[in-house]
């Protein structure tokens, strides 16, 4: 589904990614670990088409390569940036994105989606009035409005309260069960372990560890993760 070949991204003298290889099969759920600045966000941004690689190749879609535009339509990207217009209401935000994502949804459908992320009755309020956690919930609804087949998640649990975390976990588990492909950067190892079926550690811009969840217990994984982090 996603093929990353010899990917590198430099910012002047600093290299965020170097020679990174990764193949994500359809329906796989990958959790990306690694300390701050290891290159997780850069990888996700390049996958999402938000950032251009310095060298290397990224192929999205099987069996045929999707055009960048079609790839964008197949992907949903959720980060700690909400990408919501603060001066528009929740409903107006969703209406705007639905139209541009070519999702034919009536207002009732959109209101229903807003209710599903736990914001029922607040769809006509400007997003500016929302708390950080509420905005993040709405961001979930926004990012996956078009029911994408690839979900890119960059620390998506940031700022969510218990209810929001619960909802997002449920949503991700459900999407995974429906055969969606997920790539998620996360620092909370137990949570990542729980959701994913493949665990990848990125250190200094390369995939330093890549294991299937079925092959390791959480404790074993943590030990190997620590070993990789210390070795470098």
């Amino acid at each position: 589904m996603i093929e990353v070949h010899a990917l590198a991204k430099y910012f002047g003298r600093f290299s965020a990614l170097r020679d990174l290889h990764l193949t994500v099969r359809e329906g796989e759920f990958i959790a990306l670990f690694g300390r701050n600045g290891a290159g997780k966000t850069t990888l996700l941004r390049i996958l999402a088409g938000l950032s251009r690689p310095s060298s290397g190749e990224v192929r999205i879609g099987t069996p045929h390569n999707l055009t960048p535009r079609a790839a964008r339509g197949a992907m949903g990207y959720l980060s700690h940036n909400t990408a919501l217009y603060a001066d528009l209401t929740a409903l107006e935000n969703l209406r705007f994105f639905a139209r541009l994502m070519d999702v034919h949804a009536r207002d009732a459908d959109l209101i229903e989606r807003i209710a599903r992320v736990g914001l029922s009755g607040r769809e006509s309020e400007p997003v500016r009035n929302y708390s950080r956690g509420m905005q993040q919930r709405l961001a979930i609804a926004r990012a996956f409005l078009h029911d994408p087949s690839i979900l890119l998640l960059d620390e998506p649990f940031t700022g969510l309260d218990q209810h929001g975390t619960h909802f997002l976990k449920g949503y991700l588990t459900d999407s995974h069960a429906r055969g969606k492909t997920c790539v998620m950067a996360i620092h909370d190892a137990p949570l990542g372990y729980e959701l994913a079926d493949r665990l990848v550690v990125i250190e200094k811009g390369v995939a330093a560890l890549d294991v299937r969840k079925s092959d390791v217990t959480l404790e074993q994984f943590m030990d190997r993760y620590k070993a990789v982090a210390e070795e470098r």
Partner: protein
Amino acid sequence: MLAMIWAIFRKDLLIELRTKDSLNAMLFFGIVVLVIFNFALESIRESIRAAVPGVLWVAFAFSGTLGLNRMFAAEKENSCLQGLLMLPVDRGVIYLGKMLAATVFMLVTEAVIFIFSLVFFNLTVWNEIPYLVLVFFIGTLGFTTVGALLSAISVNTKMREVLLPLILFPVILPVLVNAVEATNIILNTVDYRTLKLPLTIMSVFTIIFGTISYLLFEYVLED
């Protein structure tokens, strides 16, 4: 595609109507420029009518630059640009939507600034209005076609708002020269046959830079 352009255009308009952030600033600044020119041109008070076209377009260009600066600065809040960039639409569509919205803001501002200038410089116009509307429209479109592209470039720099006028004014000089000339023909020389040349140059400029900007926009749009 038109529906997509319309959606982006409408979104910008809706936000602006709600907050009036850009419009207020643009209007006020435009009027401030008029007042300043009033003092600067004190010595030629008797023949001030000859200076009005230039004064008007300086006011339009300055206030328009404020608007163009806000165009992408607003998208940076909450990283909205990220959301736009992820949309399955051509980036040129984003360009057209936002450029048209900026054009409308500028035209609204220009109308108000123009009314103020009538009062400040003691002018009367009536039959000239359709011609003026045409010149303002084409001139503004020329300004925003390339302005939207350069605004997207300048938000990528360290200097952001400061850089835009520096790189924009040399580029839009042909539009300014011809817009001033056309306005001067309407207000002062009243030889409408000569209006064709400046209008043609401005239209050519708009078409050329509209095409270039549409094609190059995807390179400068980065979050």
